[in-house]
C-alpha cells in the first residue's frame, strides 16, 4: 500500500502502486480493511518456542485475529481466549442491515467457527483484571494466570446514560438504534422504512464519547435521505443531524466534505448538541447545548449511545488514570506499540485501546500485527520497532450505491490507498462495491489470521 514517506511507521508496508492497480477491486477491498500487506506473522522465520501462558480477553474481531496470529507465531505456548459470547457479530454489516439491504443473518456467525486449533476458549466473561498478580478472574470466580495478556474486550454501549431510553422498544414508534446488535439493526430498518413512507422529522446524532466507526451515524443519515428520495417522500421530510461538537467528523478535511454533502442533500446540521434524554411516548429527544437543554421532536430517530470501555476494564488498574481517555476507562497503552504504559506484559487492541482514532475493524487489521510482533519479540528477547500509526478507515456511504473511501492516521492525514485513482473524498461506486461484497470476506480472512 502506498504510504506517505513522512510516516516512518509505514515504511515497511510499501506496495508498488502498479501492483495494486493490477489487482483491481479485490485489492481495493483489502485497503478498506486496512491494507494489502500480509501480517507480520509471515515476515518471520519459523515459530518461536516458548512455554508462555497467554490470555486474550475478548474474542471479537481483535481477539480472534490476535489468537490466530499468535498460535502461528509461537510453538508450545498456552493461548487462552476468554469471552462468554457464543455469537460472533460482523458489525460493519449492521449498517447494511439497517439499510434494508441485507438480512440480519448476514452479520451473525459463531465464535467457535473462528477459534484457532490449539487455542483454548473459556466461555466466560472476565470479571476482574488483576495486573499486579498477572491474572484475570472470570464471572464464576475462576482465576486464570498469565505471563502475557492481550485485552480485546471491545466497548460497552451505555444506553443507560440516556434518560428514558429503552432498548426493548427499538423498532417501534420511530425508534431506531442500529448499533445495538443484529436484531436492533433489522428493527431500525423497519422503523426507517415506515418513516420513509410518510415523511416527517428524521433525527440523527452521535455521542460525545469516543466511538466505534465514527462514520456510521453519518452513513445512516445519508442512507435515510436516499431511502426517502427513492420513495418520493423526501419533500415531506426534514432531516436533522446533531453533532456533539463543532465538527461533523474528527478529520477536518472529511468534516468539510460532509458539511458540503449535507448542504447538497438538504440535511440540517446542529453543532454542540449532545443527546441526554429521550421521551419515547412524546417522541422528543433532549440535547445538552451551550445555550442550555434543547428539545427536538422526531418521527424517526437513530440513537447512538455513549460508548465506554467495558466495566471490567473501566474498574481496573488498566484504565488511563488521567487525561482524555480516563473518564471512560479506555486502556492506557502507548499509541505506537499498543503496549500498556505501566504493565509491560499487557497489550490492548481494538476498540478498548485508549488511543486517539482507531476504533474500526480496519484499524484492528493494523493494530493486531503490531501488538503480536511486540509480544513475540518480548518472548524471543529481541528488540521490536513495529508501530501503529493510527490507521483508521471508513467506507462512508453517501447514498445507496456510492461511498467515499476515507482513510486517515493519528495526525488527521489522509492515507489514500490509491492516490489519483480512488480519490478519498469522491463518492464512488467502486467504494460501494468494496463495502458490499469485499469487506466481509476481508474481515473474516482477518479474524482467521489470513489477512
Amino acid at each position, binding site marked *: 500500500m502506498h504510504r506517505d514517506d513522512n510516516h516512518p511507521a509505514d515504511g515497511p508496508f510499501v506496495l508498488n502502486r502498479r501492483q495494486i492497480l493490477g489487482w483491481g477491486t479485490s485489492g481495493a*477491498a483489502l485497503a478498506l480493511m486496512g491494507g494489502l500487506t500480509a501480517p507480520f506473522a509471515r515476515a518471520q522465520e519459523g515459530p518461536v518456542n516458548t512455554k508462555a501462558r497467554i490470555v486474550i480477553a475478548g474474542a471479537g474481531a481483535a481477539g480472534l485475529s490476535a489468537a490466530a496470529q499468535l498460535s502461528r507465531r509461537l510453538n508450545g505456548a498456552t493461548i487462552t481466549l476468554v469471552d462468554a459470547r457464543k455469537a460472533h457479530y460482523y458489525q460493519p454489516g449492521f449498517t447494511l442491515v439497517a439499510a434494508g439491504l441485507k438480512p440480519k443473518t448476514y452479520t451473525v456467525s459463531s465464535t467457535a467457527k473462528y477459534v484457532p486449533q490449539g487455542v483454548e476458549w473459556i466461555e466466560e466473561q472476565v470479571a476482574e483484571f488483576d495486573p499486579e498478580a498477572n491474572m484475570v478472574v472470570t464471572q464464576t470466580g475462576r482465576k486464570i494466570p498469565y505471563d502475557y495478556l492481550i485485552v480485546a474486550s471491545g466497548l460497552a454501549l451505555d444506553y443507560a446514560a440516556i434518560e428514558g431510553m429503552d432498548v426493548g422498544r427499538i423498532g417501534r414508534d420511530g425508534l431506531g438504534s442500529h448499533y445495538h446488535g443484529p436484531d436492533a439493526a433489522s428493527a431500525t430498518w423497519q422503523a426507517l422504512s415506515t418513516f420513509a413512507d410518510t415523511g416527517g422529522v428524521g433525527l440523527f446524532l452521535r455521542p460525545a464519547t469516543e466511538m466505534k466507526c465514527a462514520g456510521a451515524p453519518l452513513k445512516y443519515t445519508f442512507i435515510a435521505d436516499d431511502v426517502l428520495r427513492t420513495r418520493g417522500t423526501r419533500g415531506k421530510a426534514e432531516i436533522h443531524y446533531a453533532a456533539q461538537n463543532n465538527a461533523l467528523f474528527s478529520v477536518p478535511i472529511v468534516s468539510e466534505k460532509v458539511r458540503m454533502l449535507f448542504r447538497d442533500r438538504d440535511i440540517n446540521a446542529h453543532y454542540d448538541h449532545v443527546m441526554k434524554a429521550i421521551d419515547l411516548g412524546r417522541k422528543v429527544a433532549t440535547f445538552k447545548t451551550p445555550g442550555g437543554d434543547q428539545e427536538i421532536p422526531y418521527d424517526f430517530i437513530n440513537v447512538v449511545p455513549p460508548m465506554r470501555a467495558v466495566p471490567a476494564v473501566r474498574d481496573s488498574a488498566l484504565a488511563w488514570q488521567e487525561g482524555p481517555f480516563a473518564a471512560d476507562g479506555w486502556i492506557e497503552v502507548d499509541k505506537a506499540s499498543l503496549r500498556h504504559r505501566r504493565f509491560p506484559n499487557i497489550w490492548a487492541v481494538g476498540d478498548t485501546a485508549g488511543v486517539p482514532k482507531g476504533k474500526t475493524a480496519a484499524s484492528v487489521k493494523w493494530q493486531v500485527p503490531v501488538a503480536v510482533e511486540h509480544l513475540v519479540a518480548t518472548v524471543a528477547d529481541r528488540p521490536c520497532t513495529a508501530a501503529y500509526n493510527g490507521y483508521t478507515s471508513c467506507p462512508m456511504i453517501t447514498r445507496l450505491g456510492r461511498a467515499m473511501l476515507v482513510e486517515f492516521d493519528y495526525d488527521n492525514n489522509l492515507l489514500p490507498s490509491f492516490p489519483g485513482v480512488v480519490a478519498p473524498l469522491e463518492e464512488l461506486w467502486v467504494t*460501494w462495491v468494496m463495502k458490499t461484497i469485499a469487506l466481509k470476506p476481508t474481515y473474516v480472512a482477518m479474524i482467521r489470521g489470513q*489477512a
Partner: protein
Amino acid sequence: MQKFDIFVLFAVFQEMMGPVLWVLLFVALAGLSAAGFVLWHEGGLSSSRLLTSELIGLAGGFGALALMAWVTVSGFTDAGGPVDWLLIGVIWGTGLAGTTILAYGVLGLIKVAGDALA
C-alpha cells in the same frame, strides 16, 4: 516482506466466493484448455466460429455486469467517477473475454466430436 501477498488476496477471494471460487477456476481452466485444444487440433483460428463466440461473449459481458449489479445491490447509474467507468469496463471486458474463450472452446469441441462421429 510486508509486501503485497498473493495468499492474502487468495484468502479473501476464498471467503468471498467459497466453493464457487473453485468452480470458477475450474471453468476458466476448462475453457482455456478446450480453446487451446481446438486451436491445436485445427491448426488455426476458425473466423466464423470466433465471430459466433464473440457474439455470445458480448452477452457474457452484459451478464457479468448484471451479476455484479445484483450482488452489490446497485447499478451503473451509481457510477460517480472515471474509476467507476473503468471498473464497469473491466467487468464487462472480463465477462466478454471469458465467455468468448469458453464459447470458442465448447463450439470447437462440439465440431471436433461431430467430425469424429461422422
